[in-house]
């Protein structure tokens, strides 16, 4: 067993050095593809912070003063329910203080100044309103009406705040997703080609191996390890890239004026490590796929 492992590792390393140029091309392409995948996830997550309060077709948020009385809240509630042809009353949701506070934690994640001003006691509660109509003017006129109700602090409309960001976010997501998919396929192709070339360069050895009774797995394993390693190295490089990009971005965002919304476009570190692990695994996977295809197709020398 030890002899086999030693053999596989030695052959993998030797082959790596023999095909340095092809190997580099495969590794660099994998790294770029994986970096793009990682970035897609990060961008997605950052935008989500901003969009979290509008999740589920919410188009209007009625913020209620933190010192509003129970009667005032009840009045706002019944006023909202009085327009069942415009507002989807089944989806109408009231977030109390703890819920509103939890959500604010996410929205202002990159904005410690604002966060420090908020406490569960002073935070405004909110009604989340899902309209039934597509008519934004109608929703807008309702909003104007609600602003005059006692106890209402402010009324925010999705149209004003997030339409641009939402469009931008889905555009960026589509573009990066397509690009990463294409690059991933290219990376698999390059790994496949490297392994195929490595096997072709050693076809005489493979012929002798089969002749003296080496099993197909014994012949394959070093080549598959080689491909796996290429993908994995690509993954490590892209991990470093993802980390560096995120640090630079987080620092840049911190310079923005608090409360502009930009400051919430940051990613929590737990999510970042998740993305880095995913990128590593994906790297190993493309390496394994590329080399497995090569090893199974070109073993018949």
């Amino acid at each position: 067993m030890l002899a086999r492992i030693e053999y596989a590792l030695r052959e993998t390393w030797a082959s790596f050095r023999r095909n340095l140029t092809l190997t580099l091309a495969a590794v660099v392409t994998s790294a770029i593809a994986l970096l793009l995948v990682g970035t897609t996830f990060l961008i997605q997550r950052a935008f989500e912070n901003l969009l979290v309060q509008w999740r589920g077709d919410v188009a209007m948020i009625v913020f209620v003063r933190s010192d509003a009385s129970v009667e005032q809240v009840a009045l706002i509630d019944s006023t909202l329910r009085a327009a069942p042809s415009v507002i989807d009353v089944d989806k109408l949701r009231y977030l109390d203080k703890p819920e509103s506070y939890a959500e604010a934690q996410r929205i202002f994640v990159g904005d410690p100044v604002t966060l420090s001003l908020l406490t569960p006691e002073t935070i405004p509660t909110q009604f989340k309103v899902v309209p039934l109509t597509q008519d934004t003017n109608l929703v807008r006129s309702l909003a104007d009406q609600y602003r005059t109700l006692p106890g209402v602090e402010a009324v925010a409309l999705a149209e004003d705040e997030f339409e641009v960001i939402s469009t931008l976010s889905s555009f960026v997501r589509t573009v990066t997703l397509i690009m990463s998919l294409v690059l991933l396929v290219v990376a698999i192709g390059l790994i496949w080609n490297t392994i195929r070339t490595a096997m072709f360069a050693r076809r005489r050895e493979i012929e002798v191996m089969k002749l003296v009774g080496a099993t197909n797995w014994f012949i394959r394993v070093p080549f598959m390890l080689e491909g796996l390693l290429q993908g994995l190295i690509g993954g490590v490089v892209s991990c470093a890239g993802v980390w560096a990009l995120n640090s630079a971005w987080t620092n840049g965002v911190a310079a923005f004026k608090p409360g502009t919304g930009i400051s919430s476009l940051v990613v929590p570190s737990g999510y970042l490590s998740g993305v880095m692990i995913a990128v590593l695994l994906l790297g190993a996977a493309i390496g394994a796929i590329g080399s497995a295809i090569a090893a199974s197709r070109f073993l018949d020398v």
Partner: protein
Amino acid sequence: MIKLDRVSKVYGHDTVAVEDVSFDVNKGEFVFLVGPSGSGKSTLLRLMSREEVATEGDVWVAGRNVTEMPASRVPFLRRSLGNVFQDYKLLLNKTVFENVAFALEVIGKPRHVINEQVPFVLDLVGLADKSERFPNQLSGGEQQRVSIARAFVNRPLIMLADEPTGNLDPATSEGIMALLHSINETGTTVMMATHDHRVVNAMRRRVVQLDRGVVVRDQERGVYE
């Protein structure tokens, strides 16, 4: 040890390489497969090592039905065979020692077995003092000795040799035949394809003669006609 039962091999649609061939080879026999070029000698050897599969009939090698063997068992069949070829099939970037060791290494034999067996067979084939040389620093006869050492190092039950003297001059051929003879003396069954009259006539062993894929003679202590 080897049994062919009404074996035919057709390449593609209509190239009949061997047709309705049957014979038995006992353990420890030395058999010459003779016949002109294209008569099907190599095809028969390749059927025995399962580099080809018979179109019809059964091939039995060392008690196993090679024709019906699943591909996953073929490596283990090959471990009981030693193959020798006209063109040696040595790896030019490996030394004599490494070429022979390679055969044990790739079937997972531990280092201590390799370090014990390789010098032993290199001594047997008379190349103990050249184990650090590369193949292109050796004569043709010496290269063939290396390939025989590689085929024999795992103590196969059967040696299959396809024109092993085909590239060698008469004097060198004699040495190779003496080596195959001594390997046969250890109890190893030897099956050798050749169209070299002299080696066949000098040895006086069993001769199976092929002509256009058909066995036309099977004779104990035969000569090349």
